[in-house]
């Protein structure tokens, strides 16, 4: 390929290349001095976007650089649940906008049996895989058993399953080792989708006890799917795109698009241009400033989705800093932060704030509760707490953060805002920016005094947050968790009644505020740009971003 080719080329059009330009000295001159643009000029683009093929294709711009696999048993990153959920259904699901009440999916009903440790699930009888084969209890048993034996990351959330048994072709029993731990909310996530046993085995898969070594189906499942979902995976070019085609046997009716393409675009600016031009229909990774420029575009609508992710400041009872070992001093930090200002100025108001480590939207966490029992900006109270702690002039601590941004909020900006907020009561935050991986290494090792970091849940299950805070997260902030808090978390996790659970989680959140190690600052409302030629695309906070099954051309 030489300049010649570029010079005479047009995008995807049928027209033949124009006469080959000659490259005498004059030709070089034309190219050299401003003629570079002429080369581009001639590659005028045809109206590819108008073609019928394009209309039948839903094109999504998304940063998929984190994805390492599309085999459900290994899906635990941020971006790969979206295609996985489109290809596979699980037993149960969450409707968009409701992260509390489970809804039926492949299972129509489920109930704990009198023994207290068995969950019996009744399966739909009308579901076929994309291959056309009917879905049965044996496929469900196989999928769970394979997961339990492969023991990749999602497994750890269901490692309390003893076994999964076929009762009859449309009934399965899930038997738990520890019935106090939650199950149903967790298996709603895409990692626990049901795979077609026959197809997986045909490609080297197994559910045998030695599946960790013997299962070879992942390679095939990274580029193909064997599920019941609205779309079937047909290819994945890493860091390039994920291709799906519609599943004609989809049990909820024929999907709206022939094809779905998830195009990797790591730069939000490129996503912005692509959606403005109509080359993509949905852009997931735009930052607030870019969203603002789209507000007046008649072809684009902005969909907001309150995520279950949040940015928080962890304050550690660091051995190096006696002030931080004082609970009153840490509480003083909590009352010196201008929470509303952070949300208003750093993320354009597109965020909510939970009380503590349970995001708004899950059972027992609402914005009203934050006003009732959460930290609030109260400088007088902060100064009073400092005085009680014996530090009326404040204290110093090192605030570390990575060189990254979440939802368009740079940690650097957030840290500077906190620094100036805390300075009002005499608390000096010394900013220590560092590489993101190094930051995380040091934070997880409990070696920092305070850190700005981010939490996103594997499933909308309260216990996953609460148990983390009293175990591994507690270790990072050197918190010796009192026994009554431990009991509270265990009780709340075991409670199967939503209302009683909510009451217990309120107590838990109060305990977290009192301990004052975690200051949740921003729970972003993600802004997703969708072209108006797409209808029915519902965004979800449950972990898989969107329900592609409902989307169709407008």
């Amino acid at each position: 390929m030489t300049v010649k080719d570029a010079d005479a080329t047009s995008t995807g059009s049928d027209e033949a290349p124009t006469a080959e330009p000659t490259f005498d000295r004059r030709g070089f001159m034309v190219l050299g001095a401003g003629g570079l643009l002429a080369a581009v000029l001639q590659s005028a683009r045809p109206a590819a976007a108008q073609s019928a093929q394009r209309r039948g294709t839903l094109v999504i711009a998304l940063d998929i650089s984190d994805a390492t696999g599309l085999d459900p048993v290994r899906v635990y990153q941020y971006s790969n649940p979206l295609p996985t959920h489109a290809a596979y259904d699980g037993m149960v699901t969450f409707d968009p906008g409701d992260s509390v009440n489970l809804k039926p999916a492949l299972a129509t009903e489920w109930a704990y049996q009198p023994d207290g440790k068995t969950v019996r699930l009744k399966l739909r009888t009308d579901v076929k895989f994309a291959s056309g084969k009917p879905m049965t209890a044996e496929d469900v048993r196989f999928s769970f058993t394979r997961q339990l034996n492969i023991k990749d990351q999602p497994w750890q959330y269901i490692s309390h399953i003893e076994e999964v048994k076929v009762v009859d072709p449309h009934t399965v029993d899930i038997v738990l080792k520890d019935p106090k731990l939650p199950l149903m909310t967790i298996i709603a996530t895409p990692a626990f989708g049901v795979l077609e046993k026959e197809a997986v085995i045909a490609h080297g898969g197994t559910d045998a006890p030695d599946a960790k070594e013997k299962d070879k189906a992942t390679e095939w499942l990274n580029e193909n799917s064997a599920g019941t979902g609205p779309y079937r995976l047909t290819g994945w070019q890493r860091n390039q795109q994920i291709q799906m085609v519609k599943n004609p046997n989809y049990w909820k009716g024929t999907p709206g698009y022939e094809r779905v393409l998830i195009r990797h675009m790591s730069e939000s600016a490129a996503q912005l241009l692509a959606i403005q031009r109509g080359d993509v229909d949905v852009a997931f990774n735009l930052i607030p400033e870019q969203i603002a420029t789209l507000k007046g575009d008649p072809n684009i609508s902005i969909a907001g989705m309150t995520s279950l992710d949040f940015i928080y400041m962890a304050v550690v009872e660091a051995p190096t800093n006696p002030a931080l070992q004082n609970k009153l001093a840490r509480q003083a930090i909590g009352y010196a932060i201008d929470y509303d200002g952070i949300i208003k100025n750093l993320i354009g108001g597109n965020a909510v704030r939970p009380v503590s480590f349970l995001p708004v939207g899950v059972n027992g966490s609402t914005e009203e509760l934050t006003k009732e029992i959460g930290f609030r900006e109260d400088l007088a109270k902060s100064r009073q707490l400092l005085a009680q702690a014996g530090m009326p002039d404040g204290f110093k601590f090192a605030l570390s953060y990575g060189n990254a941004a979440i939802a368009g909020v740079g940690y650097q900006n957030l840290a500077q805002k906190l620094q100036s907020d805390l300075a009002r009561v005499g608390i000096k935050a010394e900013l220590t920016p560092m590489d993101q991986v190094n930051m995380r290494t040091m934070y997880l090792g409990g070696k920092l005094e305070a850190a700005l970091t981010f939490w996103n849940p594997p499933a909308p299950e309260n216990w996953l947050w609460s148990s983390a805070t009293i175990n591994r997260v507690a270790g990072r902030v050197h918190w010796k968790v009192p026994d009554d808090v431990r009991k509270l978390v265990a009780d709340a996790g075991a409670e199967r009644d939503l209302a009683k659970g909510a009451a217990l989680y309120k107590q838990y959140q109060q305990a977290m505020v009192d301990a004052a190690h975690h200051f949740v600052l921003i729970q972003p409302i993600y802004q997703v740009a969708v072209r108006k030629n797409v209808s029915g695309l519902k965004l979800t906070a449950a972990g898989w971003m969107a329900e592609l099954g409902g989307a169709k051309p407008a």
Partner: protein
Amino acid sequence: MIRYVVSRLVVSVAMVLLATLVIFLIANTVPGDPVLTALGDMAASDPAQVAEFRARWGLDLPLWHQYWLFLERLAHGDLGVSISSRRPVLQDIIDYAPATLELATVAFILSVLVGLPLGVLAAVRRDTVIDHVARAVSLIGVSAPTFWLAFIALAVFYGQLNWAPGPGRLDAVSFPPDRITGLLLIDTALQGDWETFHDAAAHLVLPSIVLAAATLGLITRTTRAAMLEALSQDYVRVAKAKGLRGRLIVVGHALPNAMLPVVTLGGLAYANLLAGAVMTETVFSWPGLGRYTFRSAVTVDFPAIMAVTAIVAAIFVLVNFLVDMSYALLDPRVVKK
């Protein structure tokens, strides 16, 4: 001549090994822990899972042992398995390298085709409009940050004017050709799929121009300087005195003598394009080696980092070697020394 080749070759291999050692030490000095990027929050906090992970990837071995294993594998042509993609690194590189190779080669050809004549003309027509234009072009090319240039190019020619296609190697609805070489232009041409060929070529225009900009500037400046030097030599005066035509003097006498520094620079510039396309690849969503390298670095993916280092070092060394060899052809005196 053979002695010259052999001595260059030995030095080259030593250079590659040295480069891998340096990167190995640097990568192991940073506090970032690959366990934390590869395992989720829960697994990374479970000592048993962390220990298993370290054992599986050989991270529990002493450093010298890890490096020795790397060399041993390298000697067998095995680049190891990437921690983050969980595939053989060689497979990853085979997947990503063609995109970069295609982009860098087009950019290089572009910068030579434009830069060389521009530099020659600027020298021949010194202090005329052409010279000023050449100097402006090379100054902008060398000094404009690639990242900025890439955004401006994309925003203007794709976003505003819609003259060029958007990010990526192909349009969304184009079907990629069956993979033969991974180079889209070649694969589509071999399969006679001219529609996709056009698409791929059009997608190359903006990123290759952006990538070529800096190289073009360097080549223009170096050519100009070398030509000015050559044109002031006695043999040029003699040639003029003999009544040779201007064009013959420039092309036949001055240019060959001015080529030595240009070839050196060109070789390094090409190696640079291959190794340094990260920014362009990022902005243009180009699934190339630059992005892969960047990703490997931020996820502390030791096997990938080491493999890419070895390959990049090998490319540089190979290019240098070829440049050295071409000296021998361009200037026989080099060998005699």
